[in-house]
């Protein structure tokens, strides 16, 4: 196998991996930026997205419909949770309380999913137009992964433009900088928080649906993915949107190339990368120390 072709396919693999990771990490970091909450349940919301996506696809036969329904359902669940529980904890101002409530939610959701969908994994079939491979430099590469790269790129660009160009995006950035001031200027900060939490959860669900055709929807998927997402958000800097993109790429490349060159130490490489970055910059690459 020639080296350039190998490098190309492995890099494309890493990019498609980064796309999935980005969907989780970007929601996590936006939620952190605006609420100073580490959402432990984010992995479970990702998993819920995959399962809802499975049910939608199974009922309607359309993968594209699943891509629309799952984020809406999971986003609504997220907003309800924020309204019911998290919003009552803001006055306490204790970061640990959020960590723990969302951890409790993660436990409950994992169980609820097991009760509803059973312990067996559920696969979502890839839509017809994305089946098969394309040949790049004599190397076969799955079409679906190319689609992931394009979709992830569009989502990243879209979110970025949304945050930079729209009034709602302006509000989100303002709240993350100084919530009290925004409140004093007459904006319903609580509303912004609920919406951003819902948006973050919807993004995670989107990631879940996108991952399902490759890995199926299974009960352990939340645990593996939430740790990756934490690592990304910590590397990139908590609350930094650009940081979540950079972090996703770094982690995906570390995973893909680490698995190839050091199969035994692939996991350790990711954590070492994170430790080195944290020791040098405790707030992450683009974050500020809390």
């Amino acid at each position, binding site marked *: 196998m020639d080296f350039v072709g190998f490098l190309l396919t492995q890099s494309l693999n890493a990019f498609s991996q980064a796309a999935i990771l980005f969907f989780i990490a970007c929601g996590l970091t936006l939620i952190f930026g605006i609420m100073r909450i580490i959402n432990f349940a984010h992995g479970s919301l990702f998993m819920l997205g995959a399962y809802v996506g499975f049910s939608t696809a199974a009922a309607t036969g359309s993968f594209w419909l699943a891509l629309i329904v799952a984020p809406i359902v999971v986003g609504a669940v997220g907003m309800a949770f924020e309204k019911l529980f998290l919003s009552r904890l803001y006055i306490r101002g204790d970061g640990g309380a959020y960590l723990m409530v969302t*951890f*409790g939610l993660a436990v409950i959701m994992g169980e609820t999913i097991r009760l509803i969908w059973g312990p067996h994994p559920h696969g979502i079939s890839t839509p017809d137009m994305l089946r098969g491979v394309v040949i790049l430099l004599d190397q076969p590469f799955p079409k679906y992964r190319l689609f992931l790269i394009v979709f992830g790129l569009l989502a990243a660009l879209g979110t970025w433009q949304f945050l930079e160009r729209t009034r709602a995006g302006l509000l989100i950035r303002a709240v993350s900088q100084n919530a009290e001031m925004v409140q004093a200027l007459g904006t319903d900060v609580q509303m912004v928080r609920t919406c951003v939490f819902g948006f973050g959860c919807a993004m995670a669900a989107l990631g879940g649906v996108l991952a399902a055709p490759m890995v199926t929807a299974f009960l352990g998927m939340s645990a593996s993915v939430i740790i990756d997402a934490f690592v990304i958000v*910590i590397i990139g800097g908590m609350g930094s949107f650009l940081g979540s993109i950079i972090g996703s790429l770094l982690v995906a490349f570390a995973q893909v190339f680490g698995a190839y060159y050091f199969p035994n130490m692939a996991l350790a490489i990711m954590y070492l990368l994170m*430790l080195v970055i944290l020791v040098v910059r405790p707030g992450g690459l683009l974050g500020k120390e809390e």
Partner: protein
Amino acid sequence: MNWKTGFVITAFVACLVPLVSPNYMMTVIIEALIFGLFAMSLDLLVGYTRLYSFGHVAAYGLGAYTSALLLLHFNLPLPIAIILAVAISMAIATPIAWVCTRTHGVSFAMLTLAFAQLGYAILYGFKDFTGGSNGLAGIPRPEGPFGLDFFQSKIGYFYMVLFCLLGSYLLCRALVNSPFGAVLAGIRENEPKTAALGYNTRAYKRIVAIAAYGFGALAGALYAPFAGFASPELFFWLISGTVLIMVIVGGSGTLIGPIIGGVFFLMLENQLSEVTSLWPLIFGSIFIAFVMFAPQGIWGLLTARFTKPPVQPGSDRDGEAARAHS
């Protein structure tokens, strides 16, 4: 009733447990006590210094694997192996604590999680040494020193675990009630202010983190020879979350509360999971309810009902109590 009377009565009653408990229950009881000790070690960080560690399982796993390796490779008497395991774990914890205590709050939680995950990854990386996903099996309980062998029976092991738990409780109690503990309370309430008073808060945090690792490692070191095996499950990050739940539900910042939380949750889990598969669901709901409505935990609720909350000189407990009620 002062605490010494209470302690002696509790210890006495606990010593009688093997007389009334059926033999099959003893396994669960011993595991519960070990978990109580583990939860208490985390309370040093969470309850007394407000450092939320999300990787405390590293202490447990470290202790378990060190004692397992010591027992498998060197023919050491069990108590010596456990003491050595704790010492080695604390030595390994020293650089970890040095790095982690550079931060606080969410960053601290994430850094401790990262170290725990690194440990988990290393277990898989050095398969020849750690057994990888198979873990280490057939860990013996060699007798000695001085011909001691009471811990080779299950009842005897119970007394050894009980002794370690009570001894650790006394040590931790002495630690948090000392001037050192008062500085920890200062860090918990307001770290910049404590630093401004001239205390090197990072050094204090480092020491308490190493101590917490030490007691956590003791729990792990007690568990591995009892179970007879050590698996990567002992390093799994969800255990960090579970033990944090036990600390909070039991009542953080009380030492006794987390012991109660750890012991009762493990026993409850054992009993309920036989009856219903819904246990994790119940567990999660109870936990959320406690965080939302009773952040002072079981022990906090009990003591608030029956006695006045203890106000310790030098600590800012009244401030905290006032906030909890507002």
